[in-house]
C-alpha cells in the first residue's frame, strides 16, 4: 500500500515544476495589475478579476446626489420587478440595469428643463400609473387612502355609542338594588373614593 502511494504520488521534481509553473502563471495573470496609489489619487490599480465585483459602474456625479433628483426617483417604481423605487434600487441592487436606465432618463428630463411633477407625469405616460410608488390621490384611489381611517372612525363612533348604552344600562341596573339597600348604612363619597383607591392599589 505504501509502495503504491509512493508510485502514484508526484515526485519532488514534478512538484517543483508544477509549483514553478503555477508561480509563473500567477505572475502572468497579475502582471497587468498596477500598484495601489494611496493618498493623492492617481490611477487606481486594476482588479485581478473585475467580473467578480459585479457590473462596471460609472463614477458618481453631483447630479446623482441631487436631493431633488432623489426625491423624484423615490416616487417612481423601478420596472425590473423588484418593488423598490428607482433611487433605492439603483443604490442597492447593483445588478439591475433597469433602474440606472430610469435614472438616466430622469436626469435627461431634468436637463431638458422639466420640473419634478412633469418628470413623474412623463413616466406615468410611458409606463402607466403603476410606475408610481403610491397611487395618485384621485378617483377610486381615494378609497385606498381614506377607507382605513374612515372605517376606524366609524367603528370608534359605533363603539362609543355601544359603550354608552352599556354604561347606561349598567347604571340603571345598579340603581334598583341601591334603592333597596338605602335602608342600610350608606358610604360617603369620600369613603367610596378611598375604597376605590385601595382596590386600585391592591390590584397591583
Amino acid at each position: 500500500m505504501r509502495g503504491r502511494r509512493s508510485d502514484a504520488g508526484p515526485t519532488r521534481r514534478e512538484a517543483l515544476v508544477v509549483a514553478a509553473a503555477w508561480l509563473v502563471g500567477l505572475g502572468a495573470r497579475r502582471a497587468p495589475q498596477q500598484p495601489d496609489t494611496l493618498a493623492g489619487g492617481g490611477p487606481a490599480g486594476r482588479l485581478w478579476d473585475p467580473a467578480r465585483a459585479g457590473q462596471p459602474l460609472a463614477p458618481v456625479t453631483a447630479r446623482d446626489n441631487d436631493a431633488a433628483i432623489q426625491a423624484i426617483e423615490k416616487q417612481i417604481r423601478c420596472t425590473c420587478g423588484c418593488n423598490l423605487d428607482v433611487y433605492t434600487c439603483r443604490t442597492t441592487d447593483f445588478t439591475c440595469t433597469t433602474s440606472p436606465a430610469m435614472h438616466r432618463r430622469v436626469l435627461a428630463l431634468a436637463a431638458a428643463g422639466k420640473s419634478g411633477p412633469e418628470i413623474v407625469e412623463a413616466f406615468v405616460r410611458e409606463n402607466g400609473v403603476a410606475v408610481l410608488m403610491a397611487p395618485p390621490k384621485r378617483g377610486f384611489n381615494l378609497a385606498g387612502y381614506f377607507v382605513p381611517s374612515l372605517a376606524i372612525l366609524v367603528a370608534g363612533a359605533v363603539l362609543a355609542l355601544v359603550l354608552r348604552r352599556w354604561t347606561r344600562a349598567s347604571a340603571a341596573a345598579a340603581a334598583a338594588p341601591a334603592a333597596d339597600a338605602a335602608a342600610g348604612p350608606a358610604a360617603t363619597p369620600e369613603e367610596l373614593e378611598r375604597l376605590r383607591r385601595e382596590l386600585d392599589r391592591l390590584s397591583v
Partner: protein
Amino acid sequence: MTVLGTLALWLAFLVGVWGALAGFLGGLKNRPDLAASARHAVFAMCGALLVAVAALEWALFHHDFNVEYVAAYTSRNLPVFYTWSALYAGQKGSLLFWAAVLTIFGSLALVLTPRRHRVFFPYVAAVVSLVASFFVSVMLFAANPFARLPYTPLDGSGLNPQLQNPGMVFHPPMLYLGYISITIPYAFAMAALLSKRLDADWLVAIRKWTLLSWLFLSIGICLGMWWAYVELGWGGYWAWDPVENASLLPWLTMTAFLHSVMIQEKRGMLKKWNLALIIGSWLLSIFGTFITRSGVISSVHSFTQSNVGYFFLFFLVAAATASFALYAARLPLLGAEATLESMVSREASFLFNNLLLVGIAFSVLWGTLFPILSELVQGTKVTVGPPFFNQVNIPLGLALLALTGVGPLIAWRRASLPNLRRQFAVPAAAGGFTFLVLAVAGMRDFYALMAIGLGAFVLATVVQEFARGTRARHRQYGEPYALALGRLLARNRRRYGGYIVHTGIVILFIAFAGMAFKTETEVTLRPGESASIRSPYGWTYTLTHLGISQYDALNRQVTAATLEVRRNGRRLGILTTEKRQHVDALGRPTFQPSTEVGIRSDLREDLYVVLGGVVNGTEQAVFRFTINPLVWWVWYGGMVLALGGLIVMWPGGGPPAVKRTQAGYAVRLVGDAR
C-alpha cells in the same frame, strides 16, 4: 429515502383524514374510543411527518441532486448550517416544515394541557389533523418535496446568497412557529364552539399558546427586520412588502386578543369578540401563507401561475365559512356576564386599543390587497409602496402608542376624576416636557416629535407603576426596595411583564422615529481618497478608501473594499464591505454578485457602507454611505419585547388566590349559568 419520505407523507395524510373524522365524531357522539383514536392519530401523523423531514434532510445532506428540491436549493459547497436551513428555504420544504411542526405542537397540546380540559381534546385533535392533512395534501398533489428530476445534475443551484445569513436561519422558523402555533388556540376555540363550553375554560387552556404564538411572531418579525437590514443593503429594515405585511397582520390581531382576553377573564365580557379575534388571527396566518405562495399580490393574473395558490384559496374560504358559520350558530350562548360600568375604565380603554390594533391590521390588509382591488375595479394596476403605508399607518401607530400609556393608568370598572389626576399627572408632564425640549432644541419632524414625546409618556407610566408597586410592597411587608421590586415582578408576571413589553414597544417607536433623520450619499473613491458625511448629531464622518482585495472563500469569490473611518478627525477603525460572487463546487457562478454591507453601530447611530461596484475594473469604487440614527435600539427594543413576553408566559407567577380570581367563573358552564 425519498421513497420513504413520499410514503410517510401518504401515511400522514391518511392518518390525518382519519384523525379528523374520528375527532369530530368522537366529540359529537361522545365516543371515548374515537376520541382516543383521534388523539393517537395526531401522534402518528407527527411521527410520519418527522420521518418525512428526516428523509428530506438526508437527501439534502447527501446531495441527492436527482431530487428536484435538493438541486434547486443546495450545492455541494453550501455550508452545513445552510444545508440544514434549506429545509424551509423553498415552498415545498416549508410546507413539510409547517405540517411537521403543527403536528408536534398538536401533540404537545394534547399531552401538556391539563386533563380537566379533556372535553376539548377530540375536537382539538380533529382540527389539528384536518389542518395538517391540508398541508400534506398540497405536498402530495401540487408541491411534492420528494419529486425527482429526469436527470441528475453534477451540482445543485445553491442557496440564494441573501438566504446565506444567520438571520435567515432563525427568522423563517420563528415566523413559521408563530403562524403554526396559532392553530392550537384556534383548535381550542373551535372545540369550545363545538362542545358549547363557552365559558373561560378554553381561554385558560390556550393562555400559554397565545403568548407563545405572539412571542414567536414578535421574535420572527424582529429577526426579519435585522436580516433585511444587514443583508439586503438598502439601508432600512421595513419596506411594507406583502410578505412583511403578512407577518404583521396576525401579530396585530394576537396583540389585540392578549389585551381583550383580560376583560373576559376579569369581567366575563367580550366573549364574542375574543373568539372572533382568535379565528381571525388563524385565518390571517393562513392568508399570509397564501399570499406569499400564490403570487397573487404582484398581479391578479400571476395567480394562475401557481396551483398551490388555488389550494390555499379554497382552504381559506372553506375554513372561514365553516368557522364563522359555527360562530354565528353559537352567538346566543356568548352573552356577557357583566356590563361596562363606565366609559372611563380600563375595559373601555382596552376596547379602543383593540379598535386601533384591528384597525391597523385592516389598514395593512387593505393596502396589501388594494392593487388587486384596483385592478378589478378600475382595470388599472397600481403600486402600493412605503409612501402609502407610512401616510396611512403612522398616525394610527401614534394613537396606539398613546393608548399604550393610557390603558394601565385607568382603573378597572370605573375611574374617578381624582384617580385620573393622580395617575396622569407625572406621565403627562414627562411626555409634554420631552416634546417641548426636543421642539426647542430644533427637532422639526412632527411624527418623530410625537413618537418620542408619547414614548416618554408611556415610559413614565411604566416607571410610575413599578415605583408605586414597589413602594406598596415596601410599606406593606417591610421589604427592601430591590427585593420589593423583584417580588413585585415575580408575583405578578403577567402585569409587570406586560409593562416590560410596553417598554419594548416604546423603544421600538423611538427607534423608528430615528429613521426620519437618515442621511445618505453616493461617492466614487480611488484608494487613498476620502469622503465626508455629516451626521444628524452634528459630527462629521470621514471615510478613506484603503483599497480592494479579492480572494476565494468557501463557496464564494469575494471582492472586499476596506475603508478607514474617522469621526471629527478621531480614528474609529476599519470598515469592510464586500461583493460576493457565489459559485458551485465546480467553480461556476450560481447567482448574480451580492453585496455585504459594512456596518459600524453604536447607541446613537449606524454608519452603513455599501460597495456598489468598481469603475473600469479598477480599485476606483462606488460607495453608498448612509447614517441611520437609533437603529441599534430597534434590536434592543425587540429584545426587551421578547424578554417581557417571556416573563409574562413564565410558569408560576402569583399566589393561587390570584389565579383563582383570574379564572373566576372558569368552572361555571354556560348551561349552569342559565
